[in-house]
């Protein structure tokens, strides 16, 4: 993994978030408090703004810097959760030799694990983890099977989509929507949606010829 890819991905993620303003806003108004889009937009903007600082760093250091920047920019629950993801992913990359899909999948899994610990949440609680955990598991499996980059990306896009859609039928047990009880059923979780969008945009970027 090269730092240039991380920077390209951050631009792609910003474009995707800006393009999905209405979707993210309406999902969060339905079961949250209406600030998810604004927070994600602010986070994406902050990362794009430090592009030149990131460019001179190793991928590990760049991910760590992204994490710290998000931590001091986003706030809310998304801030510490996404920050924990990038900081832990950077750390895991550092401790792993060579270049392989398995290395990135392992680092991704370490990032997801950090979110699980920080948020004290798990699968099935109507959160971003309903996208991230299946994607992480799938990523590890495909990497272990030495699948091609394109196969991995296509599978991860589909897995993220499935996980995001599955939050629709869940009761929220973590986050702001937890107060809603059964009234949250029928609404896709905004955090799961933004994660799915980010994963799809990065995978599509890699898939581009």
């Amino acid at each position, binding site marked *: 993994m090269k730092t240039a890819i991380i920077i390209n991905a951050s631009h792609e993620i910003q474009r995707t978030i800006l393009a999905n303003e209405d979707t993210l806003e309406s999902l969060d108004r339905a079961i949250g*408090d209406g600030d998810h889009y604004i927070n994600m937009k602010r986070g994406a903007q902050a990362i794009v703004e430090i592009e030149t600082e990131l460019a001179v760093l190793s991928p590990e250091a760049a991910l760590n810097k992204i994490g710290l920047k998000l931590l001091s920019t986003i706030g*809310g629950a998304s801030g510490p959760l996404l920050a924990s993801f990038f900081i832990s992913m950077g750390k895991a990359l550092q401790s792993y030799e060579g270049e392989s899909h398995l290395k990135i999948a392992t680092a991704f899994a370490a990032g997801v694990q950090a979110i699980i610990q920080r948020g004290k949440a798990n699968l099935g609680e109507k959160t971003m983890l309903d996208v991230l955990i299946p994607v992480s598991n799938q990523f590890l499996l495909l990497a272990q099977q030495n699948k091609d980059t394109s196969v991995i990306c296509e599978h991860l896009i589909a897995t993220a989509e499935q996980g995001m859609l599955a939050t629709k039928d869940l009761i929220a047990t973590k986050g702001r929507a937890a107060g*809603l009880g059964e009234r949250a059923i029928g609404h896709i979780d905004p955090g799961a949606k933004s994660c799915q969008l980010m994963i799809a945009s990065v995978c599509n970027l890699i898939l581009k010829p």
Partner: protein
Amino acid sequence: MKKFVNKIDDILVESLSGFGAAHADLVSLHLDPTFAVRKNKATNKVAIISGGGSGHEPLHAGYIGYGMLDAACPGHVFTSPTPDQMLAAAELVHANQGILFIVKNYAGDVMNFEMAAEMLAFENATVYTSDDCAVVNSTYTTGRRGVAGTVIVEKCVGSLAETGANLQACKALGDKVNQHISSIGIALTSCTVPAAGRPTFDIGETEIEMGVGIHGEPGRRREAMREADAIITDCVDAILADFKAKNLTIEQNNEALLLINGFGATPLMELYLIYNVAAKLFKHHGINISRSLVGNYTTALDMAGASVTLCLLDDEIKQHWDSPVHTAALRWGC
């Protein structure tokens, strides 16, 4: 949306700057990162720091001053502040007795303050407020939300800290006061997050949201609008049931503080009407309302609605509620 705004992105800084200027005798404002501290740094006491999303004014910066907070960290509207704010504030206000964070129990606030506490070099502890009894099914939630009762916790803990009590004692009182409080909110309208530009939720002319949180996040039930007596009776019943569930019986604590808090767009005239109804109902249940507070103390931007908070008083809580306080939003005895 009609609001007093220049540029949406500048709302927070402009508002905080106004707050800092209006209360320059009490607070000093810092903008990078954003936090406010007491004008005159307290010495040799536990430093009390709170914070949370903006839009709940006067919470929390309005409670900075003698007898209450040493610092407050405002986040963006309805969004938790970030750890760098807490760390910078702690650096300025710590007075060799440790830092006590007072945090409303919302996932975002909890995580950001938790990370700050982990990164902080000083001895520290955290009190989580969770007075909202509207979230009934605890197996489905991360826990109860912290709402208007937070003001009472900040007042009492702030008072104790001024006596030179240590960190453990301040934390213990905070937890105890929180346990003695129960709140429930009712929304008549939604609020509008300025950057979103439209109401957070749709609610009909003849509907109310029972058990609403302080961010316009929907509550437990959507109900038909009824007369005030009927609505407030339900609130009082919910609070009494909550104390029963917590095993805090009225016989042990028949004295109480009744706080009627406006969410931002309900006139004081109606808040006093609510007080009148609620006080009578609690009295009917054998509770002696010996302290009161009525006004906009924990708001939700421009939401119309109010919350009812009852705090059972023992001698210790009463003493710390009555003690002198001098902040922008609460002042008595000095």
